[in-house]
């Protein structure tokens, strides 16, 4: 065991002295996560595709009474106004918003939510049955537009929330204006009544907010559906992706040492090939663990990421490191030169990152892409990190680890056999 640690320590020390490798392993993921997090979580001038919105209008306006319209609304005997939701839908589907919202009308709330669950829309907007009634109604009538959002598409969600919020603000403003007009039109009208109505609108109470919206995300199987900062999700993806490269950096030393003569020299010492390979396996594992710890800490320090419960983070870290280690070692077992390792390894990691969602985030479970993600070693890991950041427990993330650990087992078996045969 002393020799295994000696080999691992030697490699760790070499990695720590390799500035370009450190930059790739530690700085690149942080910079990329910061930039992407800023772009999709907080930027204000990014060119991005229109957000897909599923719109269900369930508004059912009440019949107008002969004695008068809803309070604050139309005068007695006047023709019933059109449903207020028509104007609201008109705003969302207006040509001027085509660049930012891609609205598809669906028949009801369930259909709208299903589109979000299926990954076909980022946001479902559900106009409630009492929308018009609340706007034209009197007193404490309230109605809330529902926004059902994909939590991983925060940029699109934020845009939709902003537009919906502004539209409802306009409606509430109009309602307040009507109240003011009604107050000043009566026989005892006075400026005091008008000011009171206006103040109620401005202060957000009384007649001011008849229409609001609520925003919610689908519940994950394990988490608490707390909002996760975009930068946390991005950093998790970048962390796993660059751990592949970190593992590869150290695992490639098996091939470079074979080329440089130090590995054959080790084999001339009374040290078995199994011990040497164990040392190499250990060094790869410890390197990616160290990389992960630094990135987790940096995520907290620089971006305020809450990774989740410590025990969950610990288990997830080990699982992620095991997968990254196994994959890198298997590639070293398959290729023969450091050059091949660099070219083939990079290709494998990028393809896996694209398939697994390192760049795009996790999607809702029922989509085809989610199925592909679930069949990669990294996709379920990202889901697990996502769940962990939402406060998921160990039991709740366990199911996500089955596929990655099965992959890791295969990776280690292949690596052990091929490298063992080569150097034994």
């Amino acid at each position, binding site marked *: 065991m002393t*020799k295994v640690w000696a080999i691992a320590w030697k490699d760790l020390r*070499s990695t720590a002295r390799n500035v370009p490798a450190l930059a790739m392993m530690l700085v690149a993921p942080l910079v990329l996560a910061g930039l992407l997090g800023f772009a999709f979580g907080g930027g204000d001038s990014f060119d991005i595709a229109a957000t897909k919105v599923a719109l269900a209008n369930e508004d059912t306006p009440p019949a107008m009474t002969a004695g008068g319209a809803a309070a604050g609304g139309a005068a007695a005997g006047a023709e019933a106004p059109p449903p207020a939701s028509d104007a609201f839908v008109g705003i969302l589907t207006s040509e001027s918003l085509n660049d930012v919202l891609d609205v598809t009308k669906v028949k009801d709330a369930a259909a709208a939510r299903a589109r979000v669950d299926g990954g076909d829309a980022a946001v479902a907007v559900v106009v409630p049955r009492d929308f018009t009634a609340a706007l034209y109604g009197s007193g404490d009538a309230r109605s809330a537009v529902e926004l059902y959002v994909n939590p991983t598409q925060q940029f699109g969600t934020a845009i939709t929330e902003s537009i919906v919020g502004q539209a409802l603000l306009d409606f509430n403003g109009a309602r307040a204006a009507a109240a003011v007009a009604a107050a000043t039109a009566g026989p005892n009208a006075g400026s005091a009544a008008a000011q009171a109505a206006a103040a109620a609108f401005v202060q957000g109470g009384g007649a001011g907010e008849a229409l609001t919206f609520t925003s919610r995300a689908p519940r994950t199987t394990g988490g608490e559906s707390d909002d996760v900062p975009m930068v946390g999700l991005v950093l998790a993806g970048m962390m796993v992706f660059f751990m592949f490269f970190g593992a590869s950096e150290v695992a490639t030393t098996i091939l470079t040492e074979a080329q440089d*003569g130090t590995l*054959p020299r*080790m084999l*001339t*010492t*009374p*040290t078995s090939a199994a011990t040497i390979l164990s040392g190499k396996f250990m060094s790869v594992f410890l390197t990616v663990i160290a990389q992960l710890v630094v990135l987790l800490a940096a995520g907290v320090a620089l971006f305020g990421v809450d990774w989740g419960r410590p025990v969950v983070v610990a288990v997830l870290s080990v699982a992620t490191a095991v997968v990254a280690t196994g994959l890198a070692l298997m590639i070293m077992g398959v290729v023969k030169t450091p050059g091949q390792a660099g070219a083939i390894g990079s290709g494998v990691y990028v393809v896996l990152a694209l398939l697994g969602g390192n760049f795009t985030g996790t999607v809702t479970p029922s989509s085809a892409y989610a199925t592909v993600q679930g069949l990669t070693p990294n996709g379920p890991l990202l889901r697990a990190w996502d769940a962990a950041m939402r406060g998921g427990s160990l039991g709740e993330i366990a199911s996500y680890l089955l596929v990655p650990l099965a992959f890791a087992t295969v990776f280690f078996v292949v690596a052990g056999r091929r490298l063992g045969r080569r150097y034994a």
Partner: protein
Amino acid sequence: MSIVEVRGLSKRYDPPKGVLAVDDASFSIERGEIFSLLGPNGAGKSTTIAMLSCLLRPSHGDALVDSHSIIDDPQAVKSVIGVVPQEIAVYPDMTARENLVFWGRMYGLSGAELQTRVGEVLELVSLADRQKDRVDKFSGGMKRRLNVGVALLHRPSILYLDEPTVGIDPQSRRSILDGILALRDQGMTVLYTTHYMAEAQELSDRIGIIDHGRMIALGTHAELVRIVGQEARVDLTVDHMLEGMVERWKELPGVSSASVEDEHAELLVDDANAVLPRLFEEAAEGGSRITSVNVSEPNLELVFLHLTGRALRE
């Protein structure tokens, strides 16, 4: 007493039709001697060393190293050998001391024993004052010395050196050769491979000449030279040739023939070093003076040429 016994060792890569790199080699190495394997590039020297280092499994045959079989007990063999590979197999991003500590652990050393041996080896290879410097800042000669030092950490019974002077400057080569001779003087057994005839001639107690995987000649330098049946030729120039001097030279022990033409004489001798002082004495006694001497020794180049029909290119 033999420390290495090689018995019918063969290695064929990619059997059955691959290259036969070593073909039925048999030899022994005595304790305390420097044994050189001399041959051109591709002759099978490194393959032989690799098999004796347990890096390659022989296709046929076996070898005993300090009584341990390279096939049945490779770990025991590895614990008694020190291998200096042809390339500089140390870590450039580590210091000299860090390298030696690491390699010492690979040889099973630890604790105070490890630290003591690292210190001793640093002194031995004259790198004690540079022990904290990274190896990538060393000169080629310093790297070579460290490369040798690594193999000495565990006090091996026999040291294998696989062409350790390839591609280095004359000064570093001299330093390494002197170091090897010093190790031999301390009782170390050395197996040395080279394609430099002069190195083999200077260092070796015995030499095995290998070509195309076959051991084609084996013996001391004198024994090998005798294969070609030539004696050393001594060409002399004197200031004036005395009457009867050539006849007196002919009668000296070790001189088989002598001829004279004007002031020049040509003699065939067994051992020029032994005969030359007597030639000077005879000339001086007759009142003559030798003004120039040229000795042409029969050498391994000639032996290789004689045995293979090809030159052993340096």
